[in-house]
């Protein structure tokens, strides 16, 4: 297992070593020529990206990738998913093994600079939290002095939790296990007092626990984790396509256009909507896409609200409220730049 991962990174390294630099427009051309999109995903987080019992990929990140495929090909099914670990994901993108990374990846300064990547518009605003057993009687993360904490490695989780305990002058002990399933098993068996990760992932773990009601999320959210799709530096056109695909999902929700009423919306007299859906042509061509790109996305994948509610919303096992992920008009942070 370990060896496999090291091999995968090595292959990625070898690819970096032998391939040349991205040129603007090159990614779109190669995706079109290939006939399908290659998306890097997590593969193990329920609600974000995971195959269901029939082997069909489901999740918020998966739907984001489907939206990109719909924008490029007019067909949301033309995707190959590549499950990647936290360690593999950035080298895989840098080495062009994948076209886009939709794998709950946090936007940070280092990643946009030192790692040579660009983050598109955020598709989920997350934050790191703590899951504890109700039996401990803990009401706040500040009461966790001396606790043993199970940490999911990757992203910035380990650093955030270390910073939090340091800032509050508390002692603690980490247990870091790479495999998510093994880690949550250890937590639910009592190896740790606390499980920490992004709040959405904690909700996913609790949903799969033997007794979900016995565990509670503490109120403290100790970090900002804006999760967004990632592309390589150096291909601005491809970045624009990915970025505006996410914004199109948000804008569609704002317009009240969803997969059910999008055909009716084509006859909407509002010029903004007509431009948005390509009835008045121009926007798609500017991106190098078909003018019906937004129509295809909404028709086949849905708007942001539909994606959210179907994968992580209150009626799913995760039961997440919209919160920060609500529209800006409803007190959330989801805000699309104008389509004109």
């Amino acid at each position, binding site marked *: 297992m370990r060896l496999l991962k090291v091999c995968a990174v090595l292959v990625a390294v070898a690819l970096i070593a*032998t391939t040349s630099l991205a040129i603007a427009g090159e990614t779109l051309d190669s995706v079109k020529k290939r006939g399908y999109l290659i998306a890097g995903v997590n593969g193990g987080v329920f609600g974000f990206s995971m195959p269901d019992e029939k082997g069909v990929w489901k999740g918020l990140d998966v739907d984001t990738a489907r939206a990109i495929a719909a924008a490029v090909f007019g067909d949301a099914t033309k995707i190959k998913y590549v499950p990647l670990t936290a*360690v593999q994901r950035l*080298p895989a993108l840098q080495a062009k093994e994948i076209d886009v990374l939709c794998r709950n990846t946090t936007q940070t300064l280092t990643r946009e600079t030192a*790692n040579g990547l660009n983050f598109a518009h955020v598709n989920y605003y997350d934050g790191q939290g703590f899951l504890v057993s109700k039996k401990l009687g803990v009401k706040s993360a500040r009461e966790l002095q001396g*606790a043993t904490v199970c940490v999911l490695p990757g992203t910035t989780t380990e650093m955030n939790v*270390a*910073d939090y305990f340091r800032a509050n002058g508390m002692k603690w002990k980490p*247990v870091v296990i790479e495999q998510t399933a093994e880690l949550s098993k250890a937590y639910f068996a009592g190896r740790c007092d606390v499980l920490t990760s992004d709040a959405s992932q904690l909700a996913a773990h609790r949903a799969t626990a033997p007794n979900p009601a016995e565990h509670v999320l503490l109120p403290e959210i100790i970090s900002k984790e804006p999760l967004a799709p990632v592309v390589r*530096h150096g291909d601005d056109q491809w970045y624009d396509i990915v970025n505006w695909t996410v914004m199109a999902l948000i804008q569609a929700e704002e317009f009240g256009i969803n997969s059910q009423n999008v055909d009716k919306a084509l006859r909407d007299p509002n010029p903004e909507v007509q431009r948005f859906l390509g009835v008045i042509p121009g926007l798609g061509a500017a991106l190098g896409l078909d003018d019906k790109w937004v129509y295809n996305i909404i028709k086949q994948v849905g708007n942001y609200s539909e994606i959210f509610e179907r994968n992580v919303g209150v009626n799913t096992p995760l039961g997440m409220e919209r919160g920060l992920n609500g529209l800006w008009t409803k007190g959330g942070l989801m805000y699309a730049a104008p389509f004109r």
Partner: protein
Amino acid sequence: MAQEVADSPEITASTKIPFWYDPTKRAIIYQVVVLGMVGFVAYYLFTNTLANLERQNIATGFGFFSKEASFEIGESPIPYSAADTYGRALLVGALNTIKVAFIGVILTVILGSFIGIARLSKNWLVAKLASLYIEVMQDIPVLLQLVFWYAVFYESFPSPRQALSPIRGVYFSNRGMVFAVLQPHQVYGYMALAFVVGCFAVWTLHRWAKKRQEKTGQIFPVFLVSIAILLVLPLVTWLLGGAPLKMNFPKLVGFNFEGGATLSPEFAALLSGLVLYTAAFVAEIVRAGIQAISRGQVEAAMSLGLRPGKVLRLVILPQALRVIIPPLTSQMLNLTKNSTLALAIGYPDFVSVANTTINQTGQAIEGVGLIMVVYLFFSLSTSALMNWYNKKVALVER
């Protein structure tokens, strides 16, 4: 040969052959060409990688070594906190790997020899049990064994608040074994020094006794005297230092125990998994080594009147070791390399720490390179040590 050819002028004149017909020179040329090609490919990959990374504005180099790591490590033989550097964090990881590999190798050799000898036992039950152990352990993948032992440790013990305490100062819980240790005192340092002095004395005694035996044939009871020296010297130091015996008892504070020393479930699971798995292979190597000695050797030694212990020590072992050492070395290397599976059960070994470093710095190439270099170093130093030992026990031809 060459000398003769050069010395006879008539042959030299008629056989001035071009160098490409000379097999020796040709072999050298081939090797230089192949080496050059390998070197060129390596150079090309290296410079091209650097150039690509630079063009993509991806940071390179080991500058991150001196930056603050800002992540905690579960257990460490040296003081470490999140405020220390990545360099120190990686050092902690390396020491953790050395710790588990070193203790693991020693336990494996002991257990493996024991089971290997047991398999050759004349007692039917003992022999069958030993072969059963070997067959079962060899056939279960080591990762599975690690996960199994880890689950056993955290599932079968109670939470810290209900910890089992068989004797005072020792607690078993799903956080591991916590036990009382001696309060640090300067006398213990002197005791360690006394032990080192004792080791030196034993070594000198051993040489002297060997020389005397070669000269006079008299046998000196080296073993017993050595044990006495090694025990008495530190003990006397301890008594002279006022015999300090203050213990540091663990106490339950909040969630967990504080004070004392902890044997974590991760370390225990990794150690038991690796030792039990590798010991099965070592047992087979030991058995092969012993069976490689012809029956006649033992019979000859016994008819000389040597007791069974001496037969083993003076006749069987010196010959068996020659067969045992080389494959044993590769099992030691296997154990060290398999310790990277620690990642699966949360023991902070070198790979685990390096992975976190890669995650946080994003410098995967440097990180993976470092992992390879460090394990290469571990393996080469183990090999060097074992090769040296192998030379010592190898057949000395006179």
